C-alpha cells in the first residue's frame, strides 16, 4: 500500500483546480446553514482556525521537513498579542477594525518567529526538533510565571464587540464571526497553497530532501528554513488571532506543549505529504476535541488507538488514502471496489461496536461502578456485571473481526490486482 504514493500535482490553470477551490469556498459558505446550532457554529469557526494552523504547521513539517514541537508558541503568541490589541481597541486606544485583529496576530507570530526562529532554524532534523521542544517548554513555563502579560491562570479576556463597526457588523453574533473566519481560512489556504508554487516554496522542498545539495546550487539552507519558518508563524499567528476573537479569552494553554503536540498529531493524521492533508487534520482536531470526548469517556484511548493504527497502516494520513483511491478512480476502477468498501465498513463497524461496548463496560466498572452495573450504550442497555453483556459484546466483536478479516483479504486481493493493472497501464502509456 505504501508504494503507491505517486507524484501528484495540480496542473496550472486547469478546470479541476477551479472546481476544487470553488467547492471549497462554497463549502465554507454553506456549512453554517447546515449546522445551525450554536455549538455547530463555534465548532465550524474552530475548524477554520484549526485548518489555518495545521496548514501553517505543515509548511514547515511536510514541506520543509522540520519537525517542530513548539508550533503553539507562534499561534499562541499571536493570540496573546491579538487580544491585548483588542483590549486596547475596546478601551478606545487604537482604532483598528476588529476584522484586522487577526493580521495583528499574524504579525506578532511572525515577530516571535523572527526572534526564536533565528536560533532554531540554524539547525535541522533532530537538533531542530529538540530546540523547539526546549523553547516550547520555556515559553509555556513563562506563560504562568508572568501574569502581567499572560494574565495568569485566568488569562486575558476581552470583548470582540469593539472599535469601528462598518455596515453594522459587530462580530458579536457567532455567525458574523464565522464568516470572518471563513474568509481568512479561504485566503490563508489559498496563500499557503500559492506559496508551494513559488521559488522559495520549491527550495523548501529541496532543503527537506537534501539540504547539502541545496548549498551547492547557490542557496543558504538556513535562510530558506528561516524565511519559511517566519512565514509559517505568520499564518499560525493569524489563526491565533482568530482564536482570540472566537473565544474572547486567551489563557496559557494556547502556548502549551499539549497544544503543539495536537498540531503535530493531527497534521500528520490528515496527511503531511499532501497540501490538503492538514485541512482534514484541522477538521478532525476539532471533532475529536469537542465531540469525541462528549461521546465517551474513553476518548483518549480511542484517540491513541486511532493514531497507532493510522501510523501503522496509512502513514501518509487520510489524504494519502484519498489520493490512492482517486488514482484508482482515474483509471476507472473505483467502482469495482465499492462493494468491498461497504463490506469493510460494515464489518469494521460491527467489530468496533463490540469492542466499544467492552471498553465502555470496563470504563463503567472502573469509574462509575457505584451507579449500578447498568449503563446505556448507543441506546442499548448493558449490564457491566452480567455475563450476558460481556459475552454478547465479545461475540459481536469477534464476529465483526472475523468477517472483517474475510472482507479485508478479499479487498487486498482486489486492490493488488488493480494496482498491478495500473502499473502496467502506466508503463503502456509511457511507451506510447
Amino acid at each position: 500500500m505504501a508504494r503507491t504514493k505517486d507524484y501528484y500535482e495540480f496542473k496550472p490553470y486547469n478546470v479541476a483546480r477551479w472546481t476544487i477551490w470553488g467547492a471549497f469556498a462554497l463549502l465554507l459558505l454553506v456549512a453554517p446553514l447546515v449546522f445551525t446550532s450554536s455549538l455547530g457554529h463555534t465548532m465550524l469557526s474552530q475548524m477554520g482556525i484549526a485548518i489555518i494552523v495545521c496548514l501553517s504547521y505543515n509548511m514547515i513539517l511536510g514541506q520543509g521537513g522540520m519537525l517542530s514541537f513548539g508550533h503553539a508558541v507562534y499561534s499562541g503568541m499571536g493570540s496573546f498579542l491579538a487580544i491585548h490589541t483588542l483590549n486596547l481597541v475596546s478601551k478606545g486606544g487604537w482604532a483598528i477594525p476588529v476584522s484586522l485583529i487577526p493580521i495583528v496576530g499574524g504579525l506578532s507570530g511572525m515577530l516571535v518567529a523572527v526572534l526564536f526562529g533565528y536560533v532554531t532554524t540554524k539547525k535541522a532534523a533532530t537538533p531542530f526538533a529538540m530546540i523547539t521542544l526546549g523553547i516550547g517548554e520555556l515559553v509555556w513555563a513563562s506563560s504562568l510565571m508572568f501574569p502581567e502579560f499572560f494574565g495568569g491562570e485566568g488569562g486575558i479576556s476581552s470583548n470582540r464587540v469593539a472599535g469601528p463597526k462598518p455596515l453594522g457588523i459587530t462580530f458579536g453574533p457567532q455567525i458574523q464571526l464565522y464568516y470572518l473566519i471563513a474568509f481568512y481560512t479561504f485566503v490563508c489556504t489559498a496563500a499557503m497553497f500559492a506559496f508551494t508554487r513559488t521559488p522559495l516554496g520549491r527550495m523548501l522542498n529541496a532543503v527537506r530532501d537534501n539540504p547539502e545539495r541545496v548549498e551547492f546550487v547557490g542557496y543558504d539552507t538556513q535562510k530558506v528554513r528561516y524565511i519559511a519558518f517566519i512565514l509559517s508563524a505568520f499564518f499560525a499567528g493569524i489563526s491565533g488571532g482568530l482564536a482570540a476573537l472566537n473565544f474572547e479569552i486567551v489563557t496559557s494553554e494556547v502556548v502549551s506543549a499539549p497544544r503543539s503536540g495536537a498540531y503535530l498529531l493531527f497534521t500528520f493524521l490528515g496527511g503531511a505529504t499532501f497540501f490538503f492533508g492538514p485541512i482534514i487534520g484541522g477538521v478532525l482536531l476539532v471533532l475529536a476535541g469537542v465531540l469525541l470526548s462528549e461521546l465517551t469517556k474513553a476518548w483518549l484511548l480511542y484517540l491513541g488507538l486511532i493514531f497507532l493504527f493510522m501510523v501503522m497502516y496509512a502513514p501518509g494520513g487520510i489524504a494519502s488514502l484519498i489520493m490512492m483511491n482517486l488514482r484508482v478512480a482515474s483509471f476507472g476502477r473505483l467502482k469495482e471496489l465499492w462493494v468491498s468498501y461497504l463490506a469493510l465498513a460494515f464489518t469494521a463497524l460491527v467489530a468496533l461496536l463490540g469492542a466499544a461496548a467492552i471498553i465502555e463496560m470496563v470504563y463503567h466498572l472502573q469509574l462509575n461502578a457505584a451507579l449500578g452495573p447498568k449503563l446505556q450504550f448507543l441506546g442499548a442497555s448493558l449490564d457491566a456485571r452480567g455475563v450476558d453483556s460481556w459475552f454478547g459484546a465479545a461475540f459481536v466483536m469477534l464476529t465483526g473481526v472475523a468477517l472483517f478479516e474475510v472482507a479485508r483479504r478479499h479487498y487486498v486481493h482486489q486492490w493488488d490486482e488493480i494496482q498491478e493493472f495500473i502499473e502496467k497501464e502506466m508503463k503502456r502509456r509511457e511507451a506510447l
Partner: protein
Amino acid sequence: MLQIDNLHAFYGKSHVLHGVRFEVGEGEIVALLGRNGSGRSTTAKAVMGMVECTGDVLWKGQPLVGRKPYEIAHLGLGYVPENRDIFPRLTVHQNLMLGQKGARARKQAASAGARGRWSFDDMYGMFPRLKERQHTEAGVLSGGEQQMLTLCRTLMGDPSLIIIDEPTEGLAPKIVELVAEYLKTLKSRGVSVLLIEQKLTIALSISDRALVMGHGSIVFQGTPETLRGDAYIRKEWLEV
C-alpha cells in the same frame, strides 16, 4: 556446493529473473557476466534471501529459498554488495568487526567443520591502506577504500562461498589488479567465488568458468576460452 535451478525473482510485481540455473563448485571461481540490468545483482540477492523469489537454491544440499539472510550467512555464504554498503558511522575496524559472525553462529560453523580463516591482520595485510585508516569513520573513506572495506568485511565472516558484486567498480587500475590477485588467493584457500563483473578482461583472466546472463536467465555457460572465442555471445549479450 551451490546449485541453482529454475530461480525466479521479483521486485514487487516486476518479474526480474526467469528461471536461472547454474552451479558453483567447491574452490571454483565463476564469473557471472552480463549487461547492466540483466539481473546479475538480483541473482546474488536472491541467493542471499534478500529478494522475493521462487525456485531451488541448494547449498550443500540444503534449500535456501525462504530462509532469512542471516540464516543463510550462518551457513557459510558471504555477500559483497555492489553499492558499497559500508556502515558510514562506524569506524573501519568496527565495520570489520561486524563482518564477524556472532559467537553462537561461529560455534555452529566450527562444529560444522569450518575454521577461522581470516583475521584482522590478514585484512590489514592485504590492504595496508585500511590499516592506516582503521579508526576513521568509514563514511569518509574514499570510494575505493570503501570498496576494499566491503570486501574485507565479508571475508571476516569466513564464508565458504563468497558472492562479489562488481568489486572493481571505482578502483584505480592498480588496485583492480590487487583485487584480482586476492580473488585467486581466496580460491587457493578453498573459498568458492561467484564473481559478478563488468570488466571482461579481469573476469576472464581469473575465473574457471564464465556465465553470461541476459534478460534474467543464463544464456551462456563455459570456460573463459570458449567465451573469448564466441564472438556471437559477446556481441549479443555483453557489448552494446
